[in-house]
């Protein structure tokens, strides 16, 4: 599949730290791409380079097959920064219109699209209100609309669900899926792992300015699996303990958690259990959550990065 964005050996050093240090990745057209990392990992700097706000010190960005040209390409990108920003004293309708026209839409086009989105997210009555009169969740919705209004090819959302209640979060989530289905590519930056597992196809993990993990959610989970299986029994057996095939690492209600030793397969475990005459009701593999993987990879490195001398 075609790559909408290719980032190669991107570097951005600030006076006191290496914010982004030799990061490469590529994103497929129409994918929902998760960019993960602890606070201060360099995600925002990376995103600012992709949106043309910062120039990289070195490395190349290829957008839609051509060298990224901030002046012309930024209208194909929609960026919702983590720090939400709107003019507090400007009317909501006018604000949406202004931001859409800055992205290159004509007035008529912009009005039509605003109407569509305001209807869709039930915001029509807001037109003459000011942002300072909106709740945090409401202005979040407005920010989302202004980000995607001009139908960008690449949508970058930095923590899009923070401050949203579950109903509105689901609303936005559905819109993200719909946009991706319609061909937009989405970069989704967050440190909330459960959302990533649910939404993203492909993830990278950034820590201390470097990429430390890259792959599809499925592959990453496979890569970090620990061969742990959960076996459910009709009656919990008291006699099964660790042996040469597996260790019992835990129990829960009527089930046991087993860790299979190297060199054995789930098939061997089942054979052993069947031979022991216990009634088995379920047998499934426990894959690590992204949260666990994230913590395992990042743990031990200080969350807030120590400042290095330049």
């Amino acid at each position: 599949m075609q790559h909408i964005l290719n980032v190669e050996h991107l570097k951005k050093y600030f006076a006191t730290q290496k914010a982004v240090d030799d990061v490469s990745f590529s994103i497929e057209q129409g994918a929902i791409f998760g960019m993960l990392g602890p606070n201060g990992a360099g995600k925002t700097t990376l995103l600012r380079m992709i949106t043309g706000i910062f120039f990289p010190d070195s490395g190349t960005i290829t957008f839609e097959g051509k060298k990224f040209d901030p002046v012309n390409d930024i209208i194909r990108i929609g960026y919702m920064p983590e720090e939400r920003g709107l003019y507090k004293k400007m009317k909501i309708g006018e604000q949406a219109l202004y931001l859409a026209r800055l992205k290159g839409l004509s007035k008529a086009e912009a009005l039509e699209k605003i109407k569509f989105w305001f209807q869709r997210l039930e915001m029509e009555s807001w037109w003459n209100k000011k942002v300072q009169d909106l709740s945090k969740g409401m202005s979040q919705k407005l920010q989302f609309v202004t980000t995607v209004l001009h139908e960008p090819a690449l949508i970058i959302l930095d923590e899009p669900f923070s401050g949203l209640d579950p109903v509105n979060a689901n609303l936005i989530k559905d819109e993200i899926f719909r946009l991706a289905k319609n061909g937009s590519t989405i970069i989704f930056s967050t440190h909330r792992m459960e959302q990533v597992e649910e939404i993203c196809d492909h993830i990278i993990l950034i820590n201390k300015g470097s990429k430390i993990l890259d792959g599809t959610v499925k592959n990453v989970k496979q890569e970090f699996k620990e061969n742990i299986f959960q076996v459910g029994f009709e009656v919990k057996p008291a006699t099964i303990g660790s042996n040469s095939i597996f260790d019992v690492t835990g129990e829960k209600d009527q089930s046991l958690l087993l860790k299979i030793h190297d060199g054995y397969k789930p098939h061997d475990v089942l054979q052993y259990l069947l031979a022991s005459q216990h009634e088995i009701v379920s047998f499934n593999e426990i894959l690590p959550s992204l949260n666990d993987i994230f913590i395992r990879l990042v743990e031990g490195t200080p969350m807030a990065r120590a400042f290095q001398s330049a």
Partner: protein
Amino acid sequence: MNKIRLIIEREYMTRVRRKSFLLTTLVVPLVIVAFYAIIIAVSISGDTKTQNLAVLDEGNLFEGAITAAGKDDKSTYTFIQNETEQSFKSKYKKEGYSLFLYIPAFKDGEIPHIKLHSQSAVNLFVKSALEKKINAAIERKRLVAAHIDPELYKNIKADVDIENAIDSGAGEKKSIAGVAYAISFIAGILIYMILLIYGTMVMRGVMEEKTNRIAEVIVSSAKPFQLMLGKIIGIGAVGLTQFAIWIVVMGVLQFIIPLLFPEIFSQLSDPAVTNAAAQSVNSQKIADIIEGIQSLPITLIIFSFLFYFLGGYLMYAALFAAIGSVVSEDQQEAQQLVFPVMMPLILGFVIMTKAINDPDSGLAVFGSLFPLTSPIVMMGRITYGVPWWQLGLSMVMLVLTFLFFTWVTAKIYRTGILLYGKKVTWKEMWKWLVRKG
């Protein structure tokens, strides 16, 4: 370009549509005109037309000398006898007099202390008219005493008025120092105020964008430089609009007010009042002022005003924008950084007040060439005639400085506007400046 236009439009429209804009735009000229009207009203208030004046002339010297000035002067002058100042002071009002003039007897030809009693403060015109009459009477008596023919004396007396001719460019021009002084001063103050008011407006606008975090959203659509320039031009346009409205409103008010309050202006056109006014102010002077205004290089002054307004505004707005971009929410921090920018403005103002008194002094010439002070100081010199090379050099330097500051500011602004929660030092700003890219 299209984006800059959009940004200018937003900056302009959001400000112009604010209630506070409407309020200041309409209230300021009203206040100025009202102030002006009150001054006129106060200065001609009091019953100027018909005064019933009682005169107690203890020396009996002025009977017949203090009389009505002409047929338009309807005041009466009654000489009373057999009274003292003390005794009549309490009575004159009851007897129907509005004023009571007390002239004690002369001792050894020395003029005594003359007093005018009244119920309220006496109008300036009335007082000076009386003084003129008494002076004339005393002079006449002294001339007679010295055996000088008063008619002869009148022919001998000289009253010169020096005319200042400026020999520059297109022939000889008349100039009236007072008029030049006033116009220079007003123009200088106006430029100073414009730079200060609209400069800080730019700064607050940038700070608002930074604290609202909208800056990052905008710069993902437009270049920081476009955002900055759009803001500066938009606010400059607001300033021009406000000035245009002020001029129109003041013009209309000056036309309308005489229709609304005819009594004030009928007094002004009353011959008795204008006579008195002319006697004290000297009608020749009014004509001179008008002539003086006409003799000034009006086109040059207006052109320079617009040029220095634009150049000075663009230059200072760039500096104020840079400050707005580096401060975080802290107002106090902003004040600290604003100080170095305010210094040359204040310095310019001080030099301007010196320059209008001595327009060709070294300090004035320096101030009108040095770009940070030239918009203010040059306005202080322009009415006196400035050599063309100085004007040209000053303007070129102003434009170059404005371009330089815009370039510098763009670099600071680009970084500063995305930097939150951190106090920026001068050293860091310098680093942003010299850094490439």
